[in-house]
C-alpha cells in the first residue's frame, strides 16, 4: 500500500488526527487552560471540513473492506459540516456547564469518535467494517446522552439508548450471520452476486433491516427516540437526529441498492409499509407534544419516513435525492435544534408554550426557527421544499402515486404541528415571554451557517445537479 492509496482515507485520517491532538491537549493542559479546548477543537474540525471540499479519487483499501467514491466523500463532508455547526451551537453550553467539571475535551473526543464511526460505517465494503463502524458510531453517543450528569433523565435516557441500540446491533449482527450462512461471504460485492431470494435470505434481511431501523428510528422501532431525545442534552439529541440518522439512512440505501438488490420485490413491500407507518406515527404523535425536544424527535421520525420515499426508486434519482434530502435535513434540523439550544441555555425553557410571544422579544431567533420549521415542512423557497418534492418525484418515477399521495397528506399534517410552534412564537403575545437576549458568538455563527444552508441549498440548483452527477458512482 502506498501513500497515495492510503490518502483515500483522508477524511478518516483527519478525524483521527483531531482525536489524537485533543487527547494530547487533554493530557498536557492544566485546569485553567481547559476552556481553550473549545476554539481549538472547532478550528481543527473546521479545517478538516474545509479540506473535505478538495476533490478526492475513488478507490478501495484493505482488500475491499474500505471503499470511497465521490458520493461518499461528499456525504462525509456534509456530515462533517453538520457536526461543525452542531459543535458551534453547543460551544457555549460546554463553556457554561461542562468546562468546570473538566469534561469538555471528552465531549469533543466522544463526538468526533462517533463521527469517525459513521465515516467507517458508510465507507464499509464488507459487513465486518460496517459493524465496527456502527458500534463506533453508537457507543460514544451513549456516553454523550448521559452527559448531563446532574439530571436523572439524562442517565435514564442513556440506559434506554444503550439497551435499545445493543438490541438493535444484536439483531443486525444476527441478520449478518444469517447472510453469511446463505452466501459464505461478508463482502458486499461478492454477496450481491451470490444472494438470491430465499426464505433464509429474506429472514436475514428482516433482522438486518430491524437493526438499522432502530438507528433511523423507523416505526415500529421508534419507541426509544422521544425519551432519549428528551433526556439527552440538546446538542446530543440534535446529533442523534441528524448525523446518526443521516449516516444510517445512507448505508441502508447503499446496501438495499447493491447487496439486497436480488430481494428487491421483498424489501420494496417492507419499505412501502414502513414508510406509511413511520410517517403517520411520527406525525400524529408530534401533534400532541409540548416539549420541543420530544416534538422534534417525533418530527424527525416522520422525516425519516419521507427520506425512505427515495428508496422506492433504485437508480441515480433515488440515490441523489436521498443524499440531497439528508443534507438539507441536516441544515433544517440543526437550525431548529440550534434555536432550542440557544433558548434553553439562556432560560432553561423547552416547551412550546414558553415560546409564546417570542417574536416580539427575540425576532431573529423566531425568524430562524420559522425558517427551519418551514423547511422541514417543505415550504418554498426553502431547501426542504425541494428535498421533499424531489423525494416525491423519485417515488412517482416508479409509479408509486398512491404512496406519494399518502406522503403529501402527511406533509400537510406535519405542517399543522410546525405551525403550532410558529403560532406560539408569532401569533401569541405573552407577558412572560422569554426576554431579549443576545446569543454568544459561536452560537450565532452556528445558527447563521444553518440558516444559509436552509436558504441556499434549495434555490441554488447546482448543488443537486452535482449530487446527481456523482450519484452513479456506487451503483455500477
Amino acid at each position, binding site marked *: 500500500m502506498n501513500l497515495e492509496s492510503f490518502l483515500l482515507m483522508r477524511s478518516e485520517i483527519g478525524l483521527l488526527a483531531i482525536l489524537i491532538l485533543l487527547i494530547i491537549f487533554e493530557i498536557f493542559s492544566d485546569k485553567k487552560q481547559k476552556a481553550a479546548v473549545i476554539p481549538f477543537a472547532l478550528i481543527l474540525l473546521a479545517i478538516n471540513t474545509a479540506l473535505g471540499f478538495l476533490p478526492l479519487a475513488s478507490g478501495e483499501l484493505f482488500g475491499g473492506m474500505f471503499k470511497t467514491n465521490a458520493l461518499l466523500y461528499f456525504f462525509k463532508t456534509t456530515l462533517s459540516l453538520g457536526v461543525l455547526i452542531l459543535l458551534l451551537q453547543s460551544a457555549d453550553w460546554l463553556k457554561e456547564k461542562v468546562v468546570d467539571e473538566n469534561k469538555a475535551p471528552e465531549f469533543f473526543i466522544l463526538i468526533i469518535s462517533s463521527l469517525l464511526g459513521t465515516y467507517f460505517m458508510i465507507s464499509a465494503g464488507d459487513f465486518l467494517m460496517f459493524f465496527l463502524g456502527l458500534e463506533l458510531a453508537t457507543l460514544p453517543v451513549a456516553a454523550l446522552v448521559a452527559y448531563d450528569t446532574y439530571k436523572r433523565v439524562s442517565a435514564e435516557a442513556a440506559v434506554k439508548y444503550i439497551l435499545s441500540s445493543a438490541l438493535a446491533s444484536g439483531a443486525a449482527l444476527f441478520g449478518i450471520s444469517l447472510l453469511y450462512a446463505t452466501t459464505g461471504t461478508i463482502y458486499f460485492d461478492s454477496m450481491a452476486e451470490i444472494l438470491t431470494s430465499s426464505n433464509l435470505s429474506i429472514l436475514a434481511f428482516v433482522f438486518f433491516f430491524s437493526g438499522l431501523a432502530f438507528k433511523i428510528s423507523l416505526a415500529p422501532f421508534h419507541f426509544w427516540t422521544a425519551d432519549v431525545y428528551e433526556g439527552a442534552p440538546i446538542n446530543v439529541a440534535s446529533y442523534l437526529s441528524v448525523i446518526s440518522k443521516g449516516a444510517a439512512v445512507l448505508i441502508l440505501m447503499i446496501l438495499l441498492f447493491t447487496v439486497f438488490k436480488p430481494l428487491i420485490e421483498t424489501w420494496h413491500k417492507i419499505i412501502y409499509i414502513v414508510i406509511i407507518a413511520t410517517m403517520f406515527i411520527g406525525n400524529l404523535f408530534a401533534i400532541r407534544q409540548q416539549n420541543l425536544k420530544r416534538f422534534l424527535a417525533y418530527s424527525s421520525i416522520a422525516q425519516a419516513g419521507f427520506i425512505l420515499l427515495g428508496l422506492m426508486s433504485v437508480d441515480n434519482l433515488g440515490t441523489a435525492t436521498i443524499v440531497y434530502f439528508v443534507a438539507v435535513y441536516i441544515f433544517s434540523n440543526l437550525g431548529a435544534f440550534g434555536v432550542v439550544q440557544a433558548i434553553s441555555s439562556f432560560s432553561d425553557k423547552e416547551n412550546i408554550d414558553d415560546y409564546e410571544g417570542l417574536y416580539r422579544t427575540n425576532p431573529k431567533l423566531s425568524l430562524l426557527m420559522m425558517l427551519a420549521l418551514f423547511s422541514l415542512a417543505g*415550504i*418554498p423557497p426553502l431547501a426542504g421544499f425541494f428535498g421533499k418534492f424531489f423525494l*416525491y*418525484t423519485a417515488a412517482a418515477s416508479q409509479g408509486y402515486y398512491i404512496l406519494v*399521495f399518502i406522503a403529501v397528506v402527511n406533509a400537510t399534517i406535519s405542517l399543522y404541528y410546525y405551525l403550532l410552534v410558529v*403560532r406560539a412564537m408569532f401569533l401569541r403575545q405573552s407577558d412572560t415571554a422569554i426576554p431579549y437576549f443576545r446569543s454568544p458568538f459561536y452560537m450565532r455563527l452556528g445558527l447563521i451557517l444553518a440558516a444559509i444552508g436552509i436558504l441556499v441549498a434549495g434555490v441554488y*440548483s447546482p448543488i*443537486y445537479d452535482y449530487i446527481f452527477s456523482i450519484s452513479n458512482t456506487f451503483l455500477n
Partner: protein
Amino acid sequence: MDILSLFVVVPVLIVLALSFFAKDLKQARLISVVGMGIQFAMSINLIFAYLKERAVNTGIMVFTKDVVWYETFNIHYSIGVDAISVVMIALTAVVLLAGIFISWKIDDLPKEFFISLIALSSGVFGFFISTDLFTMFVFYEIAVIPMYLLIGIWGSGPKEHSAMKLTLMLMGASAVLSVGILGIYFNSNADGGALTFNIFEIAQVNIPEAAQNIFFPLTFIGFAVIGALFPFHTWSPSGHASAPTAVSMLHAGVLMKLGGYGVFRIAMYLLPVGALNWADFFLVLSAFGVIYGAFGAIMQKDLKYVNAYASVSHLSLVLFALLMYNKTAWTGAIIQSLSHGLLTAMFFALIGMVYGRTHTREIAKLGGIMKVLPFIGAIYVITGLAYLGLPGFSGFVAEMTIFVGAFQHPDMFRRILTIVVVSSIVVTSVYILRMVGKIMMGPLSNEEYKDLPKATWFEKTGLILLLIPVVMIGVLPLGLSEMLKESIQPFLERLL
C-alpha cells in the same frame, strides 16, 4: 433584467429594503407605497408593451425567457405572458397598491405586515408569469404561506383558528396538486420526448387518457380549492372574515383567482381529455357553489361573511364558465375574475373602513351610515350595484358574457344548469340591496355614529384606484375582450 422578471425582483427588493431600513410605520409604508407604486406603473407599462409586442409577435406567449434551473429534472425558470396573465398582473398590482393605502394606519408590527404582504405578492406575480409547472408551483406556495401570519397576527375574531384552517386547506390542496403535477410530468414523454415541466411542450404531447382521467381531478381540485370550489370552500368565509382588511382584499381579490387561472392553464389545457370526461361532475359542483354561496350570503349577519360567501358564489361562477367550453364563456370567466377581484377588494376595503369607525360589522347594528360618511356611503352603493350587475360597470359585462356563452352550448344539461345558475343573480340582488339599504340608508342606528371621522385621503386614493378600472371595463368592454380574444385562441384550438 427583462420586463417580467422585474415583477418578482421588485417585491423581493422591497422586502429586503423593509427588513433592513424600515424603522417604524411611516418608513415602512413609505417604502411599501413607493415600491408598489413602481410595481403598479410597471404593470400599466406591461399592458401597453404587451399590445405593442402582440402586434408583431404571434407566439402564444410573449416576452418569453428560459433559463435552466434544475438540469436533472429539466426544470426551467421559464416565463412569458399572454393577455390573460397580463390582465391578472395588472389586477394584482392595483389591488396591492390599494391594499397598502388601506393599511396606512396599521399599528401592530407594521414592518412585518408589509413584508408579509409584499412577499405574498411576489409569489402571485411569479405565478402569473411562469410557464413552467414546477416554477409555477413554487410561486403558488410562496403566495399561500404568508397568509398564515397575515391572518394570525393582524386578524380579528377567531383569527388563529381561521388562519390555521385556511393554511391547512390551501396547503393540503397544493399537496394534492403536487401529485397531479408529478403525474403530468411523468407522462410528458408519452410521445417519446424528454420529461418536461414546460407547459407548452406538454401541450404538444398526447397524454394517455387513463392518466388524464386520474390526474385531471387531482390537478383541478388542487387549484380549485383556492378558487372556492364547493365543498372545499369552507376556509374562505372564516378566513376572509378574520383577515385584516388589506389581506381580505388581496386574498379574495387576487389569490382566489390563482385557482381559476391554474384550472384553465394547467388542468384543462394540459389534460383536455380528462377535463372533458370530468367536466359534468365539476360543473354540477361549481353550479351548486354559485347557488349555495348566494344563499349563504343572504343568511349572514356579519358584513365580511356576506362578502365572503358572495365571493364563493362569484368565483364558482368562474369555474362554471371555464367548464362550459365556449369561447364567450371563457372570455366572461376572465372578465369575471377581474371584475370580482376589483369589486370584492372594494367591498372589503369599505367594510374595513366602516368597521374601523364603528367597531362593528353586524348588519343589524348599522344604519344610515351614508348620512355621516357620504363618500364611503356613495362608493358603497356604487360597488353594490356594480356587484349585482348593473350595466355600465364591470360586473354586468362579466356575468352577461358568461351567461350568453354558457347558454350557447347545445347540450340540454348545460342549458338547464345555466338557467339554474342565472337565477343566482336574483339572489345576489337580494342580499346586496338588503345590505346596502340597511347599513347605508334609513335613520342613523346609533347616536354615537354621528361624529364618525370622514374618509381620509389615503382611503379615498385606495378606493378610486379600484373604481377606475371597474368603470373602464364596464364602459369599454370591447377593448378588453378584443385583447383577450387572441390569447383564448390556443385554448380553443386545443380544447374544442
